[in-house]
């Protein structure tokens, strides 16, 4: 092996379930035009993680608090659009840097949350990541048809007096929890990239929803594995390598589809 397996097994196992779960959530967020949700919730999660670390809590315990509060606030405000997430990004970013500037944690730690600190993940992070991934695999088959119906035929829920808040809030909390754990494990931008890029590619190419799930998780896991190996082999930070790989795949796909002249992503 070209990397010391014992040292990096837990980090690898911690990220792998998230590389599976985040693209699945990404397909539904893209369907709902809420893909910016990840970045908004991730910023709140990072701010809460930083605040928690100031109190002696590990990032994976603090992060969900911020993300869940964001999801609940969005539901209570009855807002379901990217504008809300833009507000979360701005608020989370300012809180994160202000907490860092006014505590002993310092700017470097805030930056670590943005960049990702996967190599410091251990069995605790791996356990939490596996738990949220299993939660996604359990809940999504029930949530998905309801969320698709709500997106394409919103009048159906109201006309039939259905308790739609259950699946909308359930999905919001599932996204918040997964994004929070992912932010504390993979880093903010790596989390966003795993939600955003595989789902976009799947929407372009998959012939059905079932295939879109396979396609997006395939892209997510392949990119994660390759990024992990490259980052270790080349001694680079994991987050930027993963994001670069995914963005490259998106650009390459644009070239293949439309030729170099019109290869805008």
């Amino acid at each position: 092996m070209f990397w010391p397996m014992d040292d990096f097994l837990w980090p690898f196992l911690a990220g792998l379930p998230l590389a599976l779960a985040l693209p699945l959530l990404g397909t539904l967020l893209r369907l709902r035009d809420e893909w910016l949700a990840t970045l908004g919730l991730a910023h709140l999660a990072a701010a809460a993680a930083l605040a928690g670390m100031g109190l002696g809590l590990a990032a994976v315990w603090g992060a969900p608090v911020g993300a869940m509060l964001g999801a609940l606030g969005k539901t209570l405000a009855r807002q379901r659009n990217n504008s809300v997430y833009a507000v979360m990004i701005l608020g989370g970013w300012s809180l994160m840097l202000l907490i860092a500037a006014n505590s002993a944690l310092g700017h470097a730690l805030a930056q670590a949350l943005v960049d990702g600190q996967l190599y410091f993940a251990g069995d605790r992070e791996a356990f939490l990541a596996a738990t949220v991934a299993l939660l996604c695999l359990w809940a999504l088959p029930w949530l998905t048809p309801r969320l698709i119906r709500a997106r394409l035929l919103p009048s159906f829920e109201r006309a039939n007096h259905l308790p739609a808040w259950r699946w909308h809030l359930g999905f919001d909390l599932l996204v918040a929890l997964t994004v929070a754990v992912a932010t504390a494990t993979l880093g903010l931008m790596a989390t966003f990239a795993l939600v955003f890029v595989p789902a976009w590619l799947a929407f372009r190419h998959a012939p059905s929803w079932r295939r879109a799930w396979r396609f997006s998780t395939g892209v997510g896991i392949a990119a994660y594995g390759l990024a992990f190996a490259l980052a270790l082999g080349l001694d680079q930070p994991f987050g930027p390598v993963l994001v670069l790989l995914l963005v490259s795949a998106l650009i390459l796909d644009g070239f293949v589809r439309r030729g170099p002249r019109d290869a805008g992503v």
Partner: protein
Amino acid sequence: MNPWLRLEGVVAGYGRPVVGPVSLELGPGEVLGLAGPNGAGKSTLIAAILGEAPVFAGHVERAHGLTVAHLPQRPIRPLELPLTGQEWLRCMGVSADGMPGHLAGILQRRMDRLSGGEFQLLSLWAALAGAGQLVLLDEPTNNLDPAHVHLAAEAIMARREARATLLVSHDQDFLQRVCSRILTLGAMRGGGHGCGRQQSGTTHPPS
């Protein structure tokens, strides 16, 4: 037999009254057509029945436990959507049994890659073949060529017995063909301000 849907003096609109007062009753096996010029408030009346448009006066009564199916005037279709017709019907709890052959042939295609007419016909099937007892169809012949209009009419007629159907259309021939009664909403009077405006609603059998 008790009607499944009863409107009594309903005045509805968005922000201000747009339609009404309208009174009507609709029972199982009936297909009631809503006709009238643009701006008469036909779609607004459907929205009021769905609970999406405020009712300013009168009331809408639905039979207890009545399930509702709806075909919007412009069904939502995202520009990119990797969802087949078959998967969409499954989400809606709708079976493809008895579906016309042409429609059955497109079920494995992505919905964003169907033609406008194919998508409309699939949306109409989703409304007609599900569990909805009250079926609200807003301009079901949009985007349909004559052959597809024929298919749409046959589908509505074939499934009307166990349902109460309210159908909005500008296509008089279509209304005459499929409706058991037609309610003609009059053009609004009063230049666009709701207060005191009156609107007539008259039902008559197809000629």
